[in-house]
């Protein structure tokens, strides 16, 4: 009945006023769109970037990534002291409060980490259990972490765990996983007003927020809508239904900006693209990819500069390392393969493939770039059958060791350290399926760097590892990506150097 009424009403309204009235500056409401659905509110049960953005708006961790220099700074923590290689003392802010008004104390932090480690159903459990030896309360606002080994990426984990109120997730043996899925008592700059899974989440500014490195938010109300289709998002932006959308490609962004209805920014991103090559022969011994000359030929065959400049645009650049040059530890003085199709052909001939060979190239993202690469490889004689599909299908094939080469990307969202990309990609092949190098040395160098606190020593380990990867051409590092954001003329949004959209910093113009 309501629907019929609203139909008649909206018919009448649209007849009288051809342009609909939308939420805007006048009622201090910002509407942002995500292409992926937000299925719940609790970041500990989600893994996608969208959940991280939402998590940062409604929750806080002990640490946070400073947007200016991409360093980790205390958030709910006020200061810290590294006691020894495996011990760190942390003091908490005294003015941090949960959305229900209660104070954040050491008990809450200890409870949160115990919950994370002891309840296996949250998505962070394994990761934290891997290094956390113990956590203890040393005062009302102070705690001590002990780790099992010197753990270099500690602050990233302390940023990703959001603090929960003591007891809110149940008690040991009686955990309540769904306690915070649909409503949330967080500590972040915004509070949840209402949540419709997969449709929208409505937030209101938390006026009791302690500020901290995120700063006080300027806009009172924020609505995040899930709109799966990018075309629909554009249309909504043009007609005033939303103010902000991201992951916008160059062509569309520039065309939208030309209409004068929106601003487009194409800024740097921590995401990189690369080809992983089956040098170890997991997909069949003696396949062409196991030959060094073939892998080097592939490195020479792809015109990365042209693809980065023409297809991706903005600050995107060709890269030569298995990491994004701007993150910590990404040593740059490695062997560089220039674009040289003739050289590539010679190398192929030398390897015994004067007429090239056929190659299944798997990909799941960035179809344009995948096609451009396939065309480049075709020019030197490597006939590519592109297998472009969903990541879950790629992953299955990779698990079954059926993949010879795939086009991967890695986002490193809000974790500016080589450790994030190398941890998953250079693992011991027995424990992970992405390290196809077949070279134990790479695994040793890249992963031991994570268990070293000494900054110079870490850098040197990464340098050796990255040199080896480039020398042996285990990958074809491709390019760094750009992050494109469209925002309406009424808001002021600035992309940060890591491309991570910090929605809570948006202001009205």
């Amino acid at each position: 009945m309501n629907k019929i009424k609203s139909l008649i009403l909206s018919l009448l309204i649209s007849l009288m006023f051809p342009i609909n009235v939308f939420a805007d500056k006048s009622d201090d409401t910002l509407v942002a769109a995500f292409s992926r659905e937000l299925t719940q509110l609790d970041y500990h049960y989600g893994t996608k970037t969208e959940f991280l953005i939402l998590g940062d708006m409604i929750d806080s961790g002990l640490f946070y990534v400073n947007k200016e220099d991409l360093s980790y700074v205390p958030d709910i923590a006020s200061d810290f002291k590294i006691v020894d290689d495996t011990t760190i003392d942390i003091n908490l802010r005294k003015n941090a409060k949960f959305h229900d008004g209660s104070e954040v104390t050491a008990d809450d932090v200890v409870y949160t980490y115990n919950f994370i480690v002891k309840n296996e159903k949250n998505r962070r459990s394994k990761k934290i259990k891997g290094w956390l030896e113990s956590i203890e309360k040393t005062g009302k606002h102070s705690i001590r972490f002990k780790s099992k080994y010197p753990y270099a990426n500690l602050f990233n984990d302390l940023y990703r765990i959001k603090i929960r109120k003591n007891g809110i997730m149940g008690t040991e043996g009686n955990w309540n996983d769904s306690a915070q899925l649909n409503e949330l008592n967080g500590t972040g700059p915004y509070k949840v007003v209402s949540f419709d899974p997969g449709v929208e989440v409505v937030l209101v500014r938390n006026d009791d927020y302690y500020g901290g490195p995120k700063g006080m938010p300027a806009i009172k109300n924020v609505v995040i809508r899930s709109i799966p289709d990018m075309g629909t998002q554009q249309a909504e932006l043009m007609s005033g239904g939303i103010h902000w959308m991201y992951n916008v490609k160059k062509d569309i962004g520039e065309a939208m900006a030309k209409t004068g209805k929106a601003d487009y920014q194409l800024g740097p991103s921590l995401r990189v693209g690369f080809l992983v090559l089956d040098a170890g022969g997991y997909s069949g011994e003696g396949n062409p990819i196991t030959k060094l000359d073939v892998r080097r030929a592939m490195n020479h065959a792809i015109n990365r500069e042209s693809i980065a400049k023409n297809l991706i645009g903005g600050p995107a650049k060709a890269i030569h390392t298995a990491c994004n040059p701007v993150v910590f530890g990404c040593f740059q003085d490695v062997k560089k393969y220039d674009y040289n199709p003739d050289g590539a052909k010679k190398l192929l001939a030398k390897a015994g493939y004067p007429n090239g060979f056929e190659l299944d190239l798997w990909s799941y993202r960035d179809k344009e770039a995948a096609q451009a690469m396939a065309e480049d490889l075709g020019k030197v004689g490597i006939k590519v059958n592109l297998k472009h599909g969903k990541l879950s299908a790629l992953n299955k094939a990779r698990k079954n060791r059926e993949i010879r080469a795939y086009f991967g990307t890695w986002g490193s969202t809000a974790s500016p350290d080589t450790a994030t990309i190398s941890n998953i990609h250079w693992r011991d092949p027995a424990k992970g399926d992405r390290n196809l190098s077949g070279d134990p040395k790479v695994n040793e160098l890249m992963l031991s760097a994570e268990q070293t606190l000494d900054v110079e020593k870490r850098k040197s380990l990464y340098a050796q590892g990255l040199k080896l990867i480039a020398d042996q051409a285990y990958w074809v590092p491709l390019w760094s990506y750009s992050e494109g954001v469209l925002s309406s003329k009424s808001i002021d949004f600035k992309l940060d150097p890591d491309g991570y959209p910090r929605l809570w910093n948006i202001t009205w113009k």
Partner: protein
Amino acid sequence: MLKFIAGRLIVVLSVGLTLSIVTFFLLNYVIDPAQAIAGEDALFEEIEQIREQYGFDRSITVRYFEWFTGIFQGDLGESYYWNKPVISLLVDRAPETITLALMSVSVTILISIPLGIMAALNPNSLIDRMALGIAVTAQAVPNFWLGLIMILIFALAFPIFPVSGDKTLFHFVLPSIVLGASSVPAVMRLMRTGLLDVINADYIRTARSSGFYGWRLIFNHALRNALLPVVSVLAVQLGNKFGGSVITESVFAINGLGRLALESILGADIPTVQILVFVFAIIFLFFNLLADILNAYLDPRLRL
């Protein structure tokens, strides 16, 4: 009649079950659900955690029987992707799809019945040709394309309708036209030929020759008889609309069962996909059954 319906119901359920088995094994065979749930930049531990949590490391057969026994205890399973029971997802999403299906069938009726009547009353006239043209066009336009073009014209060039969403019935107008258009050719042709047959039938000719003529005759006798087959075909079309809503709902961002199906497949949310395949099959078969019963009821010759 009761025996007939009961027999058909058994067939319907067993078909649904067969399909759920096929879907389950196919999906589990081809995709890694843990990766799909975790997303592209998930850490290794997170993917492993999910794999263990949902027991993806156990054998497919064991998992199927778990699911199967659950069904008999009234437990449709828990969605991996949405972290909630599948049944509550269905309840949440069904109204949008039902609205869309009903509205699109209304669109079909509004376009095809009058066109069919006018075409039949004036065979080989301009109207008849136009109706044929509309039918041929509607049959050849892919509905994802029609959807995009509709948005381009009626939401942007002339902003009459909203671009996307499902907040009010107004939002359903464009999607209903897109989804309804695909049934227009079949229904219109049936209406036209059916009416032509009746008009040319002896009793109508007799009536005409004995002085009855014009609209009243058409409405009272001819139309009533010609509409009977149309009604049952409309029932079948209504059943089709549920499975057919996948693309339309995605293009217009309507939060119904069709979009849920697509998202669940892409998100490898196997419990949801399975139930949806089952539900779509049952709905389709139910409306076919309904059409059969209607046929039998309306056409005494078929009533055995």
